Each structure stands twice: as C-alpha cells, then as structure tokens.
C-alpha cells in the first residue's frame, strides 16, 4: 500500500515538474527576471518539551507562541517556472502563556533563508489579473536572542511555503503574493518546534 502511494506521488510529481508542463505553466506569466520581494508574516509556533540534563520528562507540555516576521528576498528565475530565492529576515516570538508557572521563552533574531520555488499560472493569460499558484521549499539559518537576556543561540529550519501570486497584466513588474508558510526548526533544546502562519509578499521585477 505504501509503495503504491509512493508511486502515485512520484507520478504526480513527474507530471507537475515536467519541463513541458512548466513551459505551459510559464507561458504568459510575468517577465522572467530577478525579482526583489518584501515580506511580512505572522503565525503561531508550537514548542514542546525542553531537552537537556535536569528537565523532568513529561512535565512540560506543548504551548503556543505568537510569531511575527519581516524579510526581504531576491528571487532568481532559473528556467521555465523554477526559481531560487535568497533572503534575510527579522523575526520575533512572544513568550507562551504562563500556565503552570512557566513559559517557553520569548526570543527574536535574524536569519538567512534559501529556497527554491515553482509556480503554475492558473488563470487565462489574457485575464487582467493573472493568478499563479506555487510553492517554495527551503531552509533557514537563524541566530536569536532570548528576550530580556544577553544570550544568543543558533538553530536551522526547513520550510514549505505554498503561495498564490496576483500579477496585474498591466503592471507585470510588481505583484502581491499570499503565503502559507509552514516551518519546522531543528532546535537542540526542544523536542519539537514548528510554526505555521500567513504572509504577504510584494515583489518587484525590473522592467
């Protein structure tokens, strides 16, 4: 059963990622030049169970933390509908609620984000507002400061980011995309740390 599911997924991925399909998808899309993007997003992170000597197993339960992020990115189209992105971000995470007399700490910091994206044009090229559905996948490298302290720590993460891009046919050099970023972070001091959010990115492509 698992093998059959894997084969189906591979088949669908093959269709979706085939160059022919990409060419089809890219036809009519906005100009294929590097674009600069400004991003803002917010969401919810979930932290669970600190790791390290002395922490009693099972005492600390999962709690939610609010996340906010702003960033800037450069998207470089490679061929057809593929692109590579590199960006810098500033993010902040609030402390969790203090139920039980403890919180997951607030922290904020910066990060480098690398991603690869793929988009399909889902509206007619002749429409005044072209819609592109796509996703980005990549990773981030973050250095954060625990709020109210002088303690810095590092953690990498992976992200999957479906998006819907709105490109006015009259102004193909700028667009707005709505994103649904889903991130998992490899924190050495937590059993689990991930986030999901909503975001908006404004992209500008040189004429």
């Amino acid at each position, binding site marked *: 059963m698992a093998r059959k599911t894997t084969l189906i997924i591979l088949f669908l991925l093959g269709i979706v990622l085939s160059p022919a399909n990409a060419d089809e998808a890219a036809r009519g899309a906005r100009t294929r030049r590097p674009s600069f993007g400004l991003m803002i997003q917010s969401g919810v992170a979930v932290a669970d169970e600190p790791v390290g000597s002395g922490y*009693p197993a099972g005492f600390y339960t999962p709690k939610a933390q609010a996340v906010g992020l702003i960033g800037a990115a450069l998207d470089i189209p490679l061929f057809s509908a593929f692109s590579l992105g590199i960006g810098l971000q500033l993010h902040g995470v609030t402390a969790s609620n203090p139920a039980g007399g403890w919180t997951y700490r607030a922290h904020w910091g910066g990060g480098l984000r690398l991603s690869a994206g793929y988009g399909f044009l889902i509206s007619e090229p002749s429409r005044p507002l072209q819609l592109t559905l796509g996703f980005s996948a990549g990773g981030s490298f973050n250095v954060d400061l625990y709020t109210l302290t002088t303690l810095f*720590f590092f953690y990498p993460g992976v992200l999957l980011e479906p998006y819907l891009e709105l490109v*006015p046919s009259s102004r193909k050099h700028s667009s707005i995309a709505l994103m649904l970023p889903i991130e998992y972070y490899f924190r050495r001091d937590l059993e689990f740390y991930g986030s999901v959010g909503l975001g908006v990115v404004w992209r500008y492509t040189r004429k």
Partner: protein
Amino acid sequence: MSMPRKPGRTSPRHRTAAALRAAILFLLIRTAVFSAGLAFLASCTFDLDYDKYAIVYGISDYPDPVNDLTVADDDALAMRDLLDDQGFEVISYTHTDAGATSGQLVIDMNAIASVATIDDLFVFYFSGHGGQDLPGTAGGTENTPDSDADEEYILLHDGGLTDDQLASLLRTIPCARKVVILDACFSGGFVSNYLETDAIPPEYSQGPSGIFGTLGNAIYLYANFQDYGSDIPPGEALVMAATGEQDVAYETEDNGVMTGYLLESATEADRNFDGYITVSESYFYIYRNINKSFNMLYGASGFVFFPHVSGGPVDYILFTKK
C-alpha cells in the same frame, strides 16, 4: 434588462487597486485579530496552584573578621520577607551568619525534598562571599563552554560549597522548577549554558563580544550540543548570578547591589503587564539598573560588574505582582 456597467470599473488598473485594497484589508484584519489575541492573553489570570519553597541564606559575619560583609544578612532577611509575602514556605529555611552552614543546608534541602513535589517551585537564595578555587576542587569539573578552568564556590559559614556540590544538592529536590539566586562574587561560574552564548563576557570590563564572535560561538555550541556535566545546567535550575565568572560583586549601605534591585523587581519588573514576574523579567530589571546606575557611577574607577543568567527554552514565574 441588464444595467450598464460603470465605465472604468473593470479596467486592469482598477482591478489592481482592488487587489491591493484587499491585501491591505487582509493585513489590517490579521493585525487586529493578533492584537486582540495578545490583549486577551494579557488579561487572563492563570491558576498557579502549586506550593513554593525557599531556602534563604545570608552571611555577614564570617569566622575570620577579615571576610566580614556589611549587609549580606540583611539581604537574606529582606529576601525572606519578600518571599514570605509571595506565599513561599521560607521562614524555617532562613539562616544567617553562624547558622548558615553546609550541614544546615543539607538538612534544609532534605526537609524540602521530603515534602515538595514535581509541580512545586523551589528557590535558593544566597548573599555572601563567593570565590574561585583550583580546578577539580571537591571533585568538581569545569567543562562548560565559555567557562574558565577555576572552580567557583559560595562561602558558607563553615567553608565553601562549589557549583557542582550545589548542583548535586539541587538534584535531591523533586521540583521541576528550581531557581538559584546568588548575590556573590564570581557567581556567574555557577551558570552552565550548553547551547547559548553570552554576549557579555565573564569579566564585564572586557566589553561585549563582537558580533562575529557571538555568531561563531552560537553555531559552535549548536554543533557540539551535549551535557557537559559541570556547574548548574538550566534543566536543573535557572541561576541568576550577581556577577560574571571573573567579576566582583558590591554592597551599598542597605543591600547588596544585585539584591536591592531584585527586591524592587518583584513590583517593578513586569515588562509584559501580565501580572507575573519571570526570572528573565527580574534579571532584565536587575542588569539594566546595575548598568544604568552602579556601572555608570563607578565605571571610571573600574568597579563594574554584570549579572548573568541561565539559558534554556523555558522561564519560570518568580514573583506575582501585588
């Protein structure tokens, strides 16, 4: 009969403007929901249904008069009163001067260990001398990154108690949340952070670490994350230390400099207005005020120091604002 469309309503420019308006509206709604959520959380009170225990020691009169301090015993009594007011079981575990011995500390720790549970909060407070000894003193180890090789100790009335010895005693306390507050010289050596790098060096007068040094250290610690088995790791207790590992602490006429601000923090340090003061909030209030007042005043004379705190992903409520 169909109505004629208004001219311009379907133009590409108009649609672009509509899309932009929709995006801005979307952002505004999200911001409003987010703010409402934060306001809701801030207005919530949480049932902190657990017992609180504290051991409070302060020593001004040491056997050798050369070591005598001025207000360390007063620090302990002021701290006892504060913790008592905060609902801690603390009166019978407060000892000053000749009563504050290592033997008494073991008795007090055992007494609390026999009644406390994992849900309870435990605080150990000490005001007095701190010192450094040769590596390996009392079987201790000093493997923590960013640590010097010396063995730090607090000086009880009958002798020193090293960071590793205190860590062993803390392991007998079953509480998940333990806080150690040390108003003593070199007390930063009790802090053991495995993952976090402190931008403030153990000797404050050296100035903050450079950004690339801090970044490199943070990545190094991530790549080499392990239990170094020395000092007091954040999982064992959050340590709030008056000084760095190589700094000296000071007293005023009323209190130790750190303890003075610690006492104030119980009412002044609620940064997020939720009615609770966490270890981090208290620590921030202390270091900001030491820097703004004491270090500014005496910096030219070289009498500067900087408090340090444990890392780790969790923080504990230390005080309830009254």
